[in-house]
């Protein structure tokens, strides 16, 4: 059973929710695109229906809601370390199934890889509620069906946006209070076929031919073409690498902070070690490392049961 809303009742719900939650969704930032006179579609805080941008694929993912580009870990005063406070409010994210699934990938790195949970990630992640946007057509460059990330059932509220007619399925009763409207029959739908099919290799076959894959001429082509800008890893919702960075304040050099900032295996300096050694200097080697991490290493070590990140096509 779903609830039917219109723009006004939807906005009323946002207003009610905003008392307890910060609400994020894809938004259009006028004139903020990479090129002149272009807009940037990215994730930002919203307060009304008209703020949500649904007509275009977002350039950046919602990962920065819980994993900021720059995140202060400590403030330093002399020899004291102080952990920053965070907002008491919860976090609601309107996002498509693919992006919701990508959060599960980040979860595996930050919460399950290694002996410890990443406390900075967890304290934001625990606040997140998934408001999933129905996506049945995708965009021309999407390939979520091939990766099995086209469905996400563990949502709090699911929305179908059809101009002024908005239908939602409230799975988490915690949110029932905010949405008032006519009860209607409603079953969430998911995309079943993209314009693009991506053929992912069988992990078992890769295991038998790792050296063949490593030395494939495909990577040489990337050595020639890739400029190692790291753009792909910045946009990717499942890329999670970071570097630690200390700074001091110019007006008070005795004080400063330790941050983590997004890093990229595609960019110079990522593998530098003391004394001048570095690894994967060719850009094609970096591309191979990144691709293998996504389609092979991850599956081998961190696969969870919710999403078939790799599947035989």
């Amino acid at each position: 059973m779903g609830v039917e809303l219109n723009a006004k009742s939807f906005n009323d719900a946002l207003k009610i929710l905003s008392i307890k939650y910060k609400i994020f969704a894809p938004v259009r930032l006028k004139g903020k695109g990479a090129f002149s006179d272009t807009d940037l579609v990215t994730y930002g805080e919203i307060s009304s229906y008209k703020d949500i941008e649904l007509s275009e694929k977002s350039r950046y993912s919602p990962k920065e809601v819980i994993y900021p580009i720059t995140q202060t870990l400590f403030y330093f005063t002399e020899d004291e370390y102080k952990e920053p406070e965070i907002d008491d409010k919860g976090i609601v994210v309107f996002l498509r199934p693919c992006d919701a699934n990508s959060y599960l990938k980040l979860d595996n790195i930050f919460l399950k890889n290694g002996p410890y949970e990443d406390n900075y990630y967890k304290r934001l992640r625990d606040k997140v509620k998934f408001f999933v946007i129905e996506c049945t057509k995708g965009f021309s460059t999407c390939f979520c069906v091939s990766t099995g990330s086209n469905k996400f059932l563990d949502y709090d509220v699911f929305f179908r946006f059809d101009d002024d007619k908005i239908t939602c399925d409230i799975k988490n009763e915690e949110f029932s209070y905010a949405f008032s409207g006519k009860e209607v029959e409603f079953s969430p739908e998911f995309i079943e076929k993209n314009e693009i099919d991506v053929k992912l290799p069988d992990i078992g076959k890769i295991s038998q031919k790792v050296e063949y894959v490593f030395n494939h001429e495909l990577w040489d082509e990337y050595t020639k073409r890739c400029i190692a800008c790291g753009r792909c890893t910045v946009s990717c919702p499942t890329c999670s690498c970071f570097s630690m960075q200390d700074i001091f304040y110019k007006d008070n050099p005795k004080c400063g902070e330790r941050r983590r900032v997004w890093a990229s295996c595609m960019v110079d300096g990522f593998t530098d070690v003391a004394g001048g050694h570095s690894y994967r200097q060719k850009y094609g080697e970096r591309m191979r490392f990144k691709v293998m991490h996504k389609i092979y290493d991850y599956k081998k070590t961190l696969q969870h049961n919710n999403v078939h990140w790799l599947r035989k096509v």
Partner: protein
Amino acid sequence: MTNVYMPRKAEIISIIPQTDIDYTFRLKSDILPQHGQFLQVSIPKIGEAPISISDYTDEYIELTIRKVGTVTDAIHELKPGDLLFIRGPYGHGFPVEDFKNKNVVIAAGGTGLAPVKSIINRYYRNPKEIKKLNILMGFKSPKDILFEDEIKKWKEKFDVLLTVDNGNETWTGNTGLITKFIPDLKIENPDDTIVIVVGPPMMMKFTCLEFLKRSIPEKNIWVSFERKMSCGIGKCGHCKINETYVCLEGPVFNYTKSKQLLD
């Protein structure tokens, strides 16, 4: 919730210069690491770096640090009584329990001697733990030799071979790479011999190959990898090779594993 990135203070008890650019910092600490584990060492407002533990007791740990970057430059400016900030120890060290009653060969190049010094001193204190210890050490030049006082001490109990790539007018010892001396090394029973190799990547690669030529089984060879760990706990991705996080599974690896780690 435990903050896994929160370092703790460690007071510098003493600083022992080894060379012009390598100092050993002795820190007050009750950490009892595995041989070969590393710490994340930091100075607030400067930064954090992974440093292997070169020795320890139940009262202090030692870090032998080369001045090669922003963090290590700043560490070299510190004095006894100053504080360093540490997290860890992290990773897996050498499985010394498995080395008991074996012949052990340690081949170390340059600062690669630091992560294995505590093992050598363990055997110095308890020589009966193993059958025999051979130590091969290579440095670029006589002025780069680390732990000279301890090397003299080790020579009392173990077969020690010290070589430099390039000698000087006063150098009367061996010259040449470590690999030059492996063919003539006395190895009585390869199957009963454990080999530890630590040093620069090229040194480790060719030293391991020389030991394989001497019929040392791959499973008897252990190496330690140097990688840039930013977090040390399997999150940041900097140290990853294939599906292996060096900070979690390493930095010490058996050769059977390390030979599969392809960059």
